[in-house]
């Protein structure tokens, strides 16, 4: 009990230590530890102490995803030009930065997700928290885009735009996992092209005018 005053910092460290050790284990063995019991033993901590921080390996993985996302946001904050970007540029900037952050953890991510890369249409469960945080971020971008009329307001559809951007994030992640070009140049091109397409589709286009016209013709009959 005499350790009380320093306990706070200890708590923080434990969370970090568990994450680091978990990554290490995955990197060295290519998979998650066999059980929480075994992993806790490796960490020289009691199993029940482990549960104070995480409830399962899934929740560690989830925390790693979330950390990567927060690291990206911190990086973006440091980029001065970011604030002046249009919505499209902001999203591009986010994707480029995110992939940079992922690069530092590529081996870890490859271990866990490469074999599943082709079937990632069903997203891993542990990405749920990341998804929630990302969607908040995406909503901000979308609503900003709507304000500047970069993104067209469409009934029903425009509420789903954040979902569309989320799918795009997974598309890019999958692409990046399998990318073998030097400096992941192809991923850069994939981001650039897919984001441009997405924002072109979300922006006002010939389709809107066509629907408007069709509606007019139908109603004026």
């Amino acid at each position, binding site marked *: 009990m005499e350790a009380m005053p320093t306990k706070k910092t200890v708590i923080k460290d434990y969370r970090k230590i568990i994450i680091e050790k978990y990554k290490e284990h995955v990197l060295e063995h290519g998979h998650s530890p066999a059980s929480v019991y075994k992993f806790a033993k490796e960490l020289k901590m009691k199993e029940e102490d482990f549960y104070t921080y995480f409830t399962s390996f899934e929740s560690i993985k989830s925390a790693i995803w979330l950390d990567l996302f927060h690291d990206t946001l911190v990086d973006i904050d440091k*980029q*001065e*030009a970011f604030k002046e*970007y249009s919505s*499209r*540029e902001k999203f*591009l*900037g986010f994707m*480029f930065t995110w992939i*940079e952050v992922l690069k530092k953890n590529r081996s870890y991510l490859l271990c866990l997700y490469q074999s599943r890369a082709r079937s990632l249409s069903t997203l891993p469960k542990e990405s749920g928290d990341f998804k929630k945080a990302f969607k908040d971020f995406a909503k901000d971008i979308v609503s900003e885009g709507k304000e500047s009329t970069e993104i067209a307001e469409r009934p029903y559809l425009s509420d789903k735009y954040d979902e569309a951007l989320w799918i795009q994030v997974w598309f890019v992640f999958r692409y990046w996992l399998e990318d073998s*070009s030097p*400096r992941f*140049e*192809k991923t*850069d*091109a994939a*981001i*650039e092209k897919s*984001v*441009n*397409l997405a924002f*072109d589709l979300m*922006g006002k*286009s010939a389709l809107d005018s066509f629907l408007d016209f069709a509606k007019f013709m139908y109603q004026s009959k």
Partner: protein
Amino acid sequence: MSDHLKEQQSIPTTKVQRAAKFISTGAKVGGNYVKHYAKKMVNPSMDREELHQNNATDIYNSLSQLKGSALKVAQMMSMDKNLMPRAYQDKFTMAQYSAPPLSYPLVVKTFQKYFDKSPDQIFDTFTKSAVNAASIGQVHKATLGDKSLAVKVQYPGVSDSVSSDLKLVRPFALRILNMNEKELDHYMSEVEEKLLEETDYILEVRRSREISEACSHIPNLSFPTYYDELSAERIITMDWIEGSHLKEWLETKPSQTSRNQIGQALWDFYHHQVHNLKQVHADPHPGNFIIQKNDQLGVIDFGCVKVIPEDFYQGYFALIQKSLLVNATELDQIFFDLEFISDRDTPEEQVYFKAVFTEMISLLGKPFHVDKFDFSDDGFFERIFELGDRVSNDKLFKKSNQARGSRHGLYVNRTYFGLYNLLNQLQAEVITTKPDWLK
């Protein structure tokens, strides 16, 4: 240099159309086969010649409609075979890979990859959108201290797409040029090598510097300074050249003396490169030149440089010598050396092709046969096109299934044709200097 590029706002329709074009050609070619076999059931003696002709026509029609894209490569390779079809006028540049402008975040990312800094951290000012399209990237204008700079940034993944685009062209090229695969490869590898070189910005900086230093003594020419410490594999930083493009300059109605001065500088520039340096800026299209104050010619973009091998040089220019056109045995030897004719040709073909090439060379060599040549003579160009059209429609020419002309000829021909074309646009009269041994 003021055309402000609009960043892409819509799906590139040309690409969609291009794909559609491909599909419709495929359908037509398929249709031709169906027609062929239907006819054959009725008339078993029908030969395949008609089928080939139908196919060739359909493919060629669709190709000639396709602007841009790697299919230009196919047309480019048809240059030697079709001598000078009209399509030759178009610029055969990497502009065929015209990609939509890079977004600013991608530009920032590219900078961070190579310099660990964003453009605003390196330069005092840096334009967020491109001020000009370069061949396979785009140009931003920047300032640093009292210097104005042009910064060229390349689209990621271009070098990878070169090879795959060429593969896309192959089946079409095979069909159109009526060559066998081995012979096609002979040209393909030359084209691929050059296109890949264009994506190597480090090489470009080195060559730009070499050539501009070697040409610095030529009057009325100027070159930008290149900055190594601000250049990398995908980024080139050089001085911003103030001035106007050829077209804009011509609109200001410059005097004949001015036009001649620019034309002469251009001729001297190429003369020195071809005959003395034996390596040449092989992309003489208007976008690579800027006309500055006092009628000075600024040369930018050394992406495509062709090194001319000595033995090719000897043969090629010996042909241009006026007197040689009379000496038949010597001429035969050169034709063999330059691969215009080969021992696989029938005697009939040999006679035919010799006649064609002799006519072509005497026409193209015309500027070399006089001391001063007036490139404003449109009749001269008409005769070249007329010859090209006539020959490429000749049955004997179409039927021959051999690659003709040395691979080195591809880019040297393009250089000279581009040069003639520029001089024609300038309507300039030029003293056509030639090396002593050619006189």
